[in-house]
């Protein structure tokens, strides 16, 4: 079919416009749909949705315990992932010889590709048993196990993004520091890492977002108990749950208000992650702007 060039161009452009609009529409529709499904729960419970009161018999569905569990597990995961991740990123970006770097980078990307269910499987079969036997826990299913696995899972994203941020620091900065007689480590500590700090924090924030949203392995190793432990920071012996694990555990049978409450959990997760990714983006843009002039 022969068409005038201009018409053809306009058709193609509009075709892509439709495709793009469809994608964007899908995205916005997911947002909208989640909120409408969750709103009955917010209407029914009001602020009680944040209370520690999850009872099937009384039809009270407060998400407090799950939110608490999410926070505890995420903090634990970050205690592992942030120091290890940043130090490894420094090693990769500044110390590793080119060849080692070319091997390690893909390996860390592979680590990011391992499905969460495999982590969960390993968590159940190796980690919880290990914890049970050598830390003599009751079952090994605990916040500690969840944090350990989540920490490992958050590592790749923190490492690869921090590595990019450190690599983006202009060479002139480092050379100036070395020229005045600083050792390499002093340069890293006082020049490179502080210059890359907004990129590194973007990485950390994204890592936290990832840890908050991970589902399967947490639901497998946490033990699914919907209650705030006493004392609230008891990390080692108690089983618990997170927002994600709660949804997986209860969604199959949930009806009515309980279902809406689970959607509310989804919305809370969604809002947390949205805040994380927006602030991470802002930080990343800042570092881009900062080094643009060089």
């Amino acid at each position, binding site marked *: 079919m022969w068409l005038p060039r201009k018409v053809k161009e306009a058709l193609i452009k509009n075709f892509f*416009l439709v495709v793009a609009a469809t994608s964007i529409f899908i995205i916005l529709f997911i947002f909208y749909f989640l909120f409408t499904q969750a709103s009955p729960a917010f209407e029914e419970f009001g602020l009680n949705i944040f209370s520690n009161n999850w009872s099937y018999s009384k039809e009270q569905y407060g998400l407090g315990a799950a939110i608490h569990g999410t926070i505890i597990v995420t903090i634990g995961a970050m205690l592992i992932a942030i120091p290890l991740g940043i130090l490894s990123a420094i090693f990769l970006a500044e110390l590793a010889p080119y060849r080692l770097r070319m091997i390690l980078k893909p390996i860390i990307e592979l680590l990011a590709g391992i499905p969460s269910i495999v982590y969960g499987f390993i968590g159940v079969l190796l980690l919880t048993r290990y914890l049970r036997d050598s830390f003599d826990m009751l079952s090994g299913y605990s916040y500690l196990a969840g944090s350990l696995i989540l920490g490992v899972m958050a590592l790749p994203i923190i490492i690869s993004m921090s590595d990019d941020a450190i690599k983006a620091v202009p060479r002139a900065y480092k050379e100036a520091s070395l020229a005045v007689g600083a050792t390499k480590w002093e340069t890293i500590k006082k020049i490179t890492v502080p210059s890359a700090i907004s990129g590194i924090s973007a990485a950390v924030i994204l890592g936290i977002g990832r840890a908050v949203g991970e589902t399967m392995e947490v639901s497998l190793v946490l033990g699914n108990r919907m209650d705030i432990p006493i004392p609230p920071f008891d990390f080692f012996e108690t089983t618990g749950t997170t927002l994600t694990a709660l949804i997986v555990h209860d969604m199959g049978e949930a009806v009515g208000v309980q279902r809406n409450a689970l959607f509310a959990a989804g919305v809370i997760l969604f809002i947390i992650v949205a805040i994380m990714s927006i602030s991470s983006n802002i930080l990343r843009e800042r570092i881009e702007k900062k080094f643009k002039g060089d």
Partner: protein
Amino acid sequence: MRLKEIPKSLKSSFMGYFSKENFEFIKLLYLISIIFCSIVAIIGFFSLAFSIYFGDNVVRFLLLVIALIFTYFVYYSFFVLKKRKQMIGLTIFTIIVYLLVYLLPLFPPKYGLRDYDVDASILKFVIVSISLVIVGVMGSSLTFRPRYRFTSKSKEKSAYYILIVSILLVLYPLIILISSIVTKGVGGISWDFLTMDVRKLGTEGGIYPCIVGSIFLMIGTAIVAIPLGVGCAIYLQEYARKGLITRIISICVDILQGTPSIVHALFGLAFFVPIFGISLLTGILTLGFLTLPIVIRSSEEAFRSVPQNIREGAYAVGATKWQAIRTVVLPPALPGIITGSVLGLGRAVGETAPIMFTAVYFFGAGVPNSLLDPIHALPYHLHELTKLIGYKEVTQNAWATAFVLLAIVLGMNAIAIIIRERFRVEF
């Protein structure tokens, strides 16, 4: 409180001992406090390790308070000596030590008496003693400063060791995971296992329907996500004017990309399941929407890496916009798009949560005949087997399933990385 503001009379009587002039006294106080803290910590630790609780909780609490007072003295001496870094460091380590030593035994086993075995005490011993050693080193580096001063060279060396140890710690779980799955999984792989139907809840038979289901899901996801995603990226990068709207769109894509897969599962369950039922199609759509932002992002990235002057060159010889995109922009961007898409599909095929309520049955699903049939899928099968672990044959089958899943996912990741490295176009 600033030292200078203390009245002279007070300074000469009591606070005078703590003033900067009385340097030796502060050092002594600091040393005593460090020693005391260590003793308390060791007592607490041994009571933990051998389950001989030192008195009841009240006694332990009093000890904790006394130790805290002494720690305060350490802080004070740091403050006077203007050692900010040491203060921060000490804060972190005291918190860790107290958490480990005190909060742990405060909550004894709730489920009756248990025997503490030797392994356990050794591990706890290692943890606590490492933190104590660090506190001690910090203390001595201050107190006996002239004797053990770090040179910048020795600092660099120790920092390098820490960096190397940290990268090894990162690789350790990966090695454990892959080696255990390979060694334990390979034994369960046989032709029968790969080609037989699931029988008796996975305790017998093979995983053929799971593999087929996962592959169908992957193909379907690719059909849904890649055309939409690449088209969207072309429009956003090549046609749309940069402005507020494209910015908002890009934020939306970012948020959707970060959205936990369980939230996608909720969406699929509440929106698609009422229409299509629990079926292959529902799973495909849910996973497709999950993969969409990944494809959009990576394609945008690929288009952006093509420099502007190449497009201008094409326009200069009379190409229209579409001709320029098709002939000079798309070819160099293609490796990037394929890499991103394959990575996205690799992620999709390993996802469990989104298909759990939308596409799979553990009972009675077979190889699907149509899009509206429920299916088996590898990750969900592994999930159910993990829950069943403890029954006789399940563990072996679970390892083998994990091996197959890991092989598929890592294979796809490796393909993506190879494509990227092989066909990378440098401008």
